[in-house]
């Protein structure tokens, strides 16, 4: 019966769940049976009038009561307490004053013990990849030619700070109220418990941070007031280029002229049936690259295979490749690439010459 159908469609329309074709069907039915307009009008009125019967307590009052009830749960901060009007809540000012003293004493105390002086250094040489477990339980995969330094008593610190040169993947152990901070030359990343990759080789123009799960907040050194929050599967890149005079990204207008910041989604590399995430597959000893020129691949190859790459043919530099290599040697890799683009190579012990 058409009426039942109209009611059904109206219900979905009110709930905002009707599909486009259902809406069309409804309009069609209403034109055919004009009586049903009453239903529509009536139900819409009913729907729009909110239920005032359960009068909701004032949220400001409720929030105040809430913060008083659970006072111990919140960190005392003088400026939050200021919101509370003072005439009404004189006793709060007393509490705030006491808390302010406690805070300033503790801030002073913590700051003293806060100098970062790493006493442990882990280095992965060229052609080597390492997996390490830090004292706090955090897992770190260190890529070739990278260095990680930290304090051996990281576990007892208020903030867990590590310093990274090169590339590493972090799976951070969850520790209540001990944020984990990764510093590089150009970036600073703060996390609670999450998994992410950071690439910051001093020779590269580009620094990258890729988030796999959880949430991280990062800031560019020297501009620490500007915080960027990444969501899972997002990748942040900072490119330093002295030649670029204008900032490309319009969302960051106050960045110095020679820095470009971009945030994009991770695009997996699809080869055959499989998908590879370029940013993290190095952990499984897979070298993945997508549409990269031989020139861009040079530093990657040098780190991965521990070789020195030299070009004698300018043309070869601009050949672009996409590929996944696992256990192949440099020779096997280059031979495979020769099948795609015509170039020759000579291999000495630690030198590759491409001509």
């Amino acid at each position, binding site marked *: 019966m058409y009426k039942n159908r109209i009611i059904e469609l109206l*219900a*979905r329309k009110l709930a905002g769940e009707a599909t486009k074709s259902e809406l069309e069907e409804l309009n069609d039915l209403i034109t055919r049976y004009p009586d049903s307009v009453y239903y529509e009008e009536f139900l819409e009125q009913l729907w729009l009038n909110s*239920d005032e019967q359960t009068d909701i307590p004032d949220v400001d009052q409720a929030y105040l009561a809430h913060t008083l009830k659970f006072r111990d749960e919140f960190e005392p901060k003088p400026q*939050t307490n200021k919101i509370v009007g003072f005439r009404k809540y004189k006793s709060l000012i007393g509490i705030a004053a006491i808390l302010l003293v406690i805070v300033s004493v503790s801030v002073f105390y913590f700051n003293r013990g806060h100098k970062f002086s790493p006493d442990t250094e882990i280095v992965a040489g060229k052609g080597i990849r390492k997996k390490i477990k830090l004292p706090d339980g955090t897992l770190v995969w260190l890529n070739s030619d990278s260095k990680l330094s930290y304090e051996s008593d990281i576990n007892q610190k208020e903030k867990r700070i590590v310093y990274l040169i090169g590339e590493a993947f972090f799976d951070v152990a*969850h520790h209540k109220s001990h944020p984990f901070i990764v510093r590089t030359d150009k970036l600073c990343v*703060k996390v609670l418990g999450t998994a992410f990759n950071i690439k910051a080789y001093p020779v590269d123009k580009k620094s990258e941070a890729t988030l796999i799960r959880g949430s991280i907040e990062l800031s560019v050194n020297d501009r620490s007031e500007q915080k960027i929050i990444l969501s899972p599967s997002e990748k942040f890149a900072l490119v330093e280029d002295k030649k670029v005079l204008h900032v490309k990204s319009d969302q960051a207008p106050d960045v110095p002229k020679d820095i470009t910041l971009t945030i994009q989604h991770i695009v997996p590399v699809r080869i055959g049936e499989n998908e590879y995430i370029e940013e993290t597959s190095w952990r499984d000893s897979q070298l993945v690259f997508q549409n990269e020129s031989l020139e861009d691949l040079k530093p990657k190859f040098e780190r991965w295979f521990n070789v020195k790459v030299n070009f004698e043919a300018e043309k070869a530099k601009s050949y672009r490749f996409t590929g996944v290599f696992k256990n192949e040697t440099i020779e096997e890799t280059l031979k495979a690439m020769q099948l795609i683009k015509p170039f020759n190579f000579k291999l000495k012990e630690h030198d590759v010459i491409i001509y």
Partner: protein
Amino acid sequence: MPKHLPDLNSLISHIALYNNENAYEKLFKSLFPSLYRFCFYLLKSRELAEEVASDVMITLWRDREKLAEVRNIKVYAFVIARNLSLNVLNKHSKQEWVSLDDIEFEIVLDNLNPEQILINDELKKKLEVATEKLPSQCKLVFKLIKEDGLSYKETASILNISPKTVDAHLVTAIKKMSNVLKAEFNLM
């Protein structure tokens, strides 16, 4: 009415990463009214509803580090509210176990402006009587969708039923009201 809430996800990031109390205050003010209303349907007591809604919020604050991984904070909060409310009911009742289906409550149609539409008190009463006999889950579905602007999917995960069932419940409730309307206005 579904109100446009501030970007809850960015609030949550601020809470999870910086322990930001200002962000928490905003989150509290966006969620508290809906949570309070939902708890009130279940508990029938202003004091208890206020207490439970406040407890839901402090639970979010206590577990703030995990919040970054929560996909839909609204659903997450409502599920906590449902569980805490049922705990309270179980504690207060002599019965061993209270389920959502056993809770009695009414659909109250309020505040209709007679100038906008010709609905008198009598009709309102008729509508309320008609909806009274609906199963309680059906009424709850009606309220969550109408008052809190939740989607089928969200309502489904809060009440632990399938979105199809949510649709069926809503259609049933609307149908009951339409029947009253039909009799009243001699519609086809």
